């Protein structure tokens, strides 16, 4: 039940001359019939920090696995730096780096040994690899721990080593699947700094999936928002927010003989016709007693809204006014919020041909 009244319909995806990732009409249906990706198209430009934002189960992991040659697509076209991911997978693999949601260095090896093995997987010449290894150890602040067994590392250190491993062959594009899930706020902020540094200093294109609004907002130059296997919006965080309008007013209703959700729907139907209102959306599930109204000017609109609803005998029990966030953008298109406070579901240490492939979420 999409209640959004926005007028922005799906725009044709933007095309760029310097695109390094090109995805057109991508489809993925798992054996068993679950449609994980229902035709998405987007492009990522050279040097860009690109985010793929969406709630758990939206299709982010499926998309990234197709892009990095771990999963076969059902339809559409996917090319990385001009190479088809299915037919030229070896060439694609040479040019990309990947760090999984769960850092997976070899715990029995030292950091330096991990980098050495990793470099040899890419056939890097010995002297070049040696130099690169030292460079990455410095870059990721692992110098003191470089010859310690990784099993003794803290979570943040493992994550940094994992990132170093993904960078050892100096890829053109770095793919990160939920890079900060499971990290504490301090390590998360730290990892952001490292990512920004490699993006700037190495000119690396970064493709990142996340369900953290804040992360997408802070890091990404451009975002695609995905939900239910479809792209619902694309643009820079600032663009997406400004498209939404000036201010976001959230009205809350309470049961008073008439159910709150019913009041919310009634209120939305009155509000959306007002000339000063851009959009009005009723939330889903836990947010179903709330109406989110986007207006040009919040302080002028609040009294008018209150008068309107009083006149209809719909008492507002709570009101907040904020500048738009990406969460509001998401709500606008889907009617639900990306719940950031959800505990991270334990999906096991995801296997490659593992549970997810057999039982896609």
């Amino acid at each position, binding site marked *: 039940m999409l209640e959004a009244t926005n007028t922005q319909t799906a725009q044709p995806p933007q095309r760029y001359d310097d695109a390094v990732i090109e995805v057109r009409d991508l489809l993925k249906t798992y054996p068993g019939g679950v449609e994980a990706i229902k035709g998405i198209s987007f492009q990522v430009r050279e040097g860009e920090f690109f985010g793929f934002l969406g709630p758990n189960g939206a299709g982010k992991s499926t998309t990234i696995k197709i892009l990095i040659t*771990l999963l076969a697509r059902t339809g559409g076209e996917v090319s990385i730096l001009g190479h088809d991911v299915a037919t030229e997978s070896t060439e694609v693999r040479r040019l*990309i780096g990947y760090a999984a949601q769960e850092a997976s260095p070899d715990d*029995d090896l030292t950091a330096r040994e991990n980098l050495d093995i990793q470099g040899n*997987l890419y056939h890097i010449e010995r002297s070049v690899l040696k130099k690169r290894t030292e460079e990455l150890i410095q870059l990721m602040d692992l110098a003191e721990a470089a010859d310690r067994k990784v099993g003794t590392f803290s979570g943040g250190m493992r994550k940094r080593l994992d990132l170093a491993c993904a960078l050892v062959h*100096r890829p053109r594009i770095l793919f990160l699947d939920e890079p900060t899930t499971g990290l504490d706020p301090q390590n998360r902020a730290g990892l952001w700094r490292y990512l920004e540094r490699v993006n700037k200093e190495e000119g690396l294109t970064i493709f990142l999936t996340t369900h953290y609004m804040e992360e997408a907002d802070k890091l990404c130059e451009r975002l695609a928002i995905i939900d239910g296997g479809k792209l619902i919006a694309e643009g820079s965080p600032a663009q997406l927010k400004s498209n939404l309008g000036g201010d976001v007013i959230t009205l809350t209703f309470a049961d008073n003989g008439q159910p709150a959700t019913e009041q919310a729907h009634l209120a939305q139907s009155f509000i959306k016709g007002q000339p000063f209102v851009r959009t009005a959306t009723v939330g889903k599930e836990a947010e179903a007693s709330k109406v989110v109204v986007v207006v040009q000017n919040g302080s002028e609109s609040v009294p008018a809204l209150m008068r309107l609803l009083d006149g209809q005998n719909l008492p507002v029990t709570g009101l907040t006014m904020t500048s738009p966030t990406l969460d509001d953008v998401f709500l606008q298109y889907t009617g639900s919020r990306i719940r950031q406070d959800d505990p991270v579901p334990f999906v096991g240490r995801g296997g490659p041909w593992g549970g997810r492939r057999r039982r896609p979420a």
Partner: protein
Amino acid sequence: MATPARTLAAPLAPRLNNSFGNLLHDIFTLYRRAIIRQTRAPAALYFSLVQPLIWFLLFGQLFSRITTGFGAAPTSGGQNPVAAQFGTTNYQAFFLPSIIIQMMLFGAAGSALGIINDDQTGYLNKLRVSPINRMAILLGGLLSDLTRMMVQVTILVVVGLLFGVQIQHWELLPVAFLIALLFGMMMGGLGLYVGLTTRSTQATFLVINFFTLPLLFTSSAQLPVKFLPEWLQTVSRFNPVTYAIDAMRIIITGPNIDQRLPNGDADLSVIGIGLLVLLVLAGLTLILATLKFRKQVQ
């Protein structure tokens, strides 16, 4: 907001073709990793080396009087008739090939553990995203396990020598090692196949253990086949363990009642047949494991 053109450092990974040299490089890389891993768990390494030694000494002692006919006096002057049928009066010499094969038999589950572990930690995805040859993922780990087991074989042979085993055909000893290696590859392939199918450590151990002891006790491991009840004799002729042990026994122990030609000489064709059977079976299990892996890993 076009980003200014940046001069990008070239990727460090060279373009690769599907050459045999590149495959060897990949196998060696993952072999090196697996060997380092083995040395980082010295306790496991130590026990895997000591356990077959204990079996060897214990079983060797347990049955040691069989080969002397329980001390029965020789009937027609000279050799004890029971001893003649074992081909030696030293049961430990008779048992040495069995313990070598037994060790390779039990080692099979081990080769699957590495890949199941990599699957569970996510390391396997790192490998799959890299441009390495997919075969190297299976072979690197398998070869490191075989390396460890061949060291164990060497230790067992040396200990056997210390316990008075007299090797009959020194010149064929490398062939005995080859037999052990082929048997290890066969079991390794089987272990990988089971491991890739079940994708669980526990299930792999259960399945492999279900087969190992029956395979051992329906073979010539403890006694010459001709000493077994007839139905077991039939079963043992379809058991690869028998082929491996018999071929090795001619080299290490000397021929027993099973391998003697009517004129009393050793039937050396047993060695050739053993090699052939093991070569075919090792090829078969490795192909099965590879096909399974190919299906799961692109």
